[in-house]
């Protein structure tokens, strides 16, 4: 009955813990491994112009609704200008304005963007476009082309593909050449395609964006064609006719308007540069959680001050160490002084590293023990005696630090956090066991403590473990579930198999 309740409870804890873990991992994109980095890009737009002396207004399209990407940070550098960032028909704009300006002016917009697969295009279905009225002979050419493409296609998607194929490879086709005109660039091709698509009553629009690269100073703004198939927007390359957006294509703005519109200035020069940088995926995941207005993602240890974070980084590993102690004591059957003394010793090992820590522990306990035996003769009361041993332990640590510093070992200096009280209690307990049960038992328990501490240290020090408990503290619920289940373990301890070996076989 009780077993069954514990199992249900443990299962519940594990499910909750793993559920939050999975959500943070899959949806928010918290990293499973330490030291991974996420690629982000810094996109910078520089707008330079000469102001005429009167009021100046400049509007620059900036990324807003960009499928597949999210903005982590934005900066507007515009000395003397006021600015707003309204949504306009083509997307999002920054509008700079100043009452009076003269001479060379430079405005900057900088955004840090990162991949965000959860960001999708959200748009309403557009109305059917009106059939364009063109002058002859263009109108006839258009109608002929529409007829021809329609016979070779089945739906808006295949229509667009077929049309763009025709536009891309005219092969001496008179209608196409007439409609495209001489030496068409990609924008011309896109515009022509939009006209013909409108004639076939298929909604389409021009979209501009940039191809993200590792580093480029003068990025071309590329036009792309968006076609609505009645359900969603599809992307087509206006030059080749291929469907789909290229990877790492940042959609910037839509429509016919230019990137920058300027009133009250001349000699406009616009440059877009891109640089890819690596960023901590945790920062990115947290931004994503903020964007989602997600309490779970925001409710993270990373919102604490750095100092507290360091403390919790250590603290969160303690339950893992405790679980190790549970396994070593209840499943294996190792004897130790005190229940969780080894975990605290293991924490001290973090400062000193294992070899030094173990050496230090043994030396301090051995010297402390001999001094404790001497003190037995002085017949001090318990508390003063403990205080005296504590003082001696501290003095020994100072001594060790000084000696190791003289010898050039810097590790000796980091013993400061070695838990003196724990050492003192260990020495006291060990001396009692020594007196009452003999040196054999005392040494056995001492070595057991040291061994458990070393294993705890090794497990708690696994970088992945540290990373997981810090980024996903909910995993401690799973640890708790495991601890609960181990709490109901009634089987033999491994050492008992040896202890009762006489009884394994033979006569009854």
């Amino acid at each position, binding site marked *: 009955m009780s077993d069954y309740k514990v199992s249900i409870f443990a299962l519940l804890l594990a499910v909750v813990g793993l559920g939050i873990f999975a959500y943070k991992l899959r949806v928010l994109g918290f990293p499973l491994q330490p030291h991974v980095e996420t690629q982000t890009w810094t996109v910078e737009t520089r707008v330079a112009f000469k102001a005429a002396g009167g009021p100046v207004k400049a509007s620059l399209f900036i990324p807003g609704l960009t499928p597949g990407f999210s903005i982590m940070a934005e900066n507007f550098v515009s000395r003397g200008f006021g600015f707003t960032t309204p949504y306009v028909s083509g997307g999002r704009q920054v509008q700079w304005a100043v009452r009076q300006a003269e001479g060379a002016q430079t405005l900057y917009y900088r955004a840090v963007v990162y991949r965000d697969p959860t960001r999708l295009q959200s748009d309403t279905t557009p109305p059917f476009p009106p059939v364009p009225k063109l002058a002859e002979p263009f109108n006839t050419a258009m109608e002929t082309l529409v007829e021809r493409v329609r016979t070779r296609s089945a739906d808006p998607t295949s229509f667009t593909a077929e049309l763009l194929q025709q536009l891309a490879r005219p092969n001496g086709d008179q209608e196409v050449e007439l409609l495209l005109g001489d030496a068409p660039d990609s924008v011309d091709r896109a515009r022509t395609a939009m006209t013909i698509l409108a004639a076939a009553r298929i909604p389409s629009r021009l979209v501009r964006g940039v191809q993200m690269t590792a580093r480029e100073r003068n990025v071309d703004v590329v036009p792309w064609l968006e076609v609505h198939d009645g359900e969603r927007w599809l992307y087509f390359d206006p030059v080749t006719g291929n469907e789909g957006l290229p990877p790492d294509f940042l959609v910037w703005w839509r429509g016919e308007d230019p990137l920058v519109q300027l009133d009250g200035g001349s000699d406009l020069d616009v440059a877009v540069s891109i640089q890819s940088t690596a960023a901590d995926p945790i920062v990115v995941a947290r931004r994503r959680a903020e964007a989602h207005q997600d309490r779970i993602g925001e409710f993270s240890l990373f919102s604490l001050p750095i100092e507290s974070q360091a403390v919790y980084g250590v603290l969160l590993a303690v339950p893992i160490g405790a679980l190790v102690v549970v396994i070593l004591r*209840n499943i294996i*059957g190792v004897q130790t002084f005190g229940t969780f003394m080894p975990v605290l010793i293991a924490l001290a090992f973090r400062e000193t590293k294992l070899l030094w820590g173990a050496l230090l522990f043994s030396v301090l306990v051995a010297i402390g023990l001999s001094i404790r035996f001497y003190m037995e003769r002085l*017949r001090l*009361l*318990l*508390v003063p005696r403990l205080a005296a041993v504590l003082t001696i332990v501290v003095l020994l640590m100072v001594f060790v630090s000084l000696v190791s510093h003289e010898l050039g070992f810097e590790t000796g200096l980091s013993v400061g956090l070695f838990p003196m009280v724990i050492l003192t209690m260990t020495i006291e307990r060990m001396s*009692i066991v020594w007196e*009452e*049960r*003999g040196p054999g*038992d005392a040494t056995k328990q001492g070595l057991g403590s040291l061994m458990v501490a070393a294993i705890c240290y090794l497990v708690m020090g696994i970088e992945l473990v540290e990373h997981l408990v810090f980024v996903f503290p909910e995993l401690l619920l799973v640890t708790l579930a495991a601890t609960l289940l181990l709490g*109901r*373990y*009634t*089987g*033999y*301890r*491994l050492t*008992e*198999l040896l*202890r*009762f*070996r*006489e*009884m*394994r*076989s*033979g*006569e*009854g």
Partner: protein
Amino acid sequence: MLGWARQLRERGVLGMNERNTEYIMRFNPRRLYPLVDDKLLTKELALKAGIAVPELYGVIRAEHDIAGLGELVRDRQDFAIKPAHGSGGDGIMVVTGRSPRAPGLYRLADGSVISESEIGFHLSNILSGQFSLGGHRDVALLEYCIKVDPLFSEYSFQGVPDIRVIVLRGYPVMAMIRLPTRRSRGKANLHQGAIGAGIDLASGVTTYGVHGNSRAIEHPDTGATIAGLAIPRWEYLLTLAARSYELTGLGYVGVDIVLDRRFGPLILELNARPGLNIQICNRAGLRLRLERAVALPAEPDIAARVAKSRELFATAA
């Protein structure tokens, strides 16, 4: 490894984890622990119920009481000092004699002589909680020093042998005797080298001895044969053990009984977490016996329980 575990399971060997969860937690309510963890309380309880225990000479409760030690034991040649909350025999000091010429000198069980101030230091350590579980403040008991029954003089080196009976719900289920040796320095603790011998619950005769991890045929210091020793007044001894259930209400206890030359069987202490070595000495698993005892009906009549136990848990011939 799994094979080993299965063999132990088949033979009904009780492991530490199972003992803790299935018997101690199930049959021993936490609130009853003080009754056995505090030896002073146990003694008071036993006296009230008319159960034989070693006589209490005095209690040292505070540091300044230590000065009155000489006065307390003025008329006693021998006595034992015990921490009320000690466990596993830690902190027990047995004084067996005093120097007739220098009243401040005492002889201990191992023959050494110490001064009153040294005893005072030991008492002070007891008071400050050195031997108590968790290091809490403690009190020291001064009590009657058990005189070994001559029957056991050949079976023990110094010290006093004690008989441990495991009792479940008032039914004795297994018993052993612990014989001090030179190696155990007169202590009846198996960890420290005392010999343990199983006792047939039906007859009260020892069956099989264990010393450390190996079989003991003879006592290493006296040469006496371990097996075949008949414990006198066995029925009475089992009754004494079985009464511990009514005394404390604890369902699963180890009752430690000594045989005194003058007073016969005396309850020395009760243990709410008795060890598992008794299984090795008896070459029998506790779990099978405990399971059978669990199934027995609640029986208020102590004699009937003892009779039932002797019938059920006799060592198979």
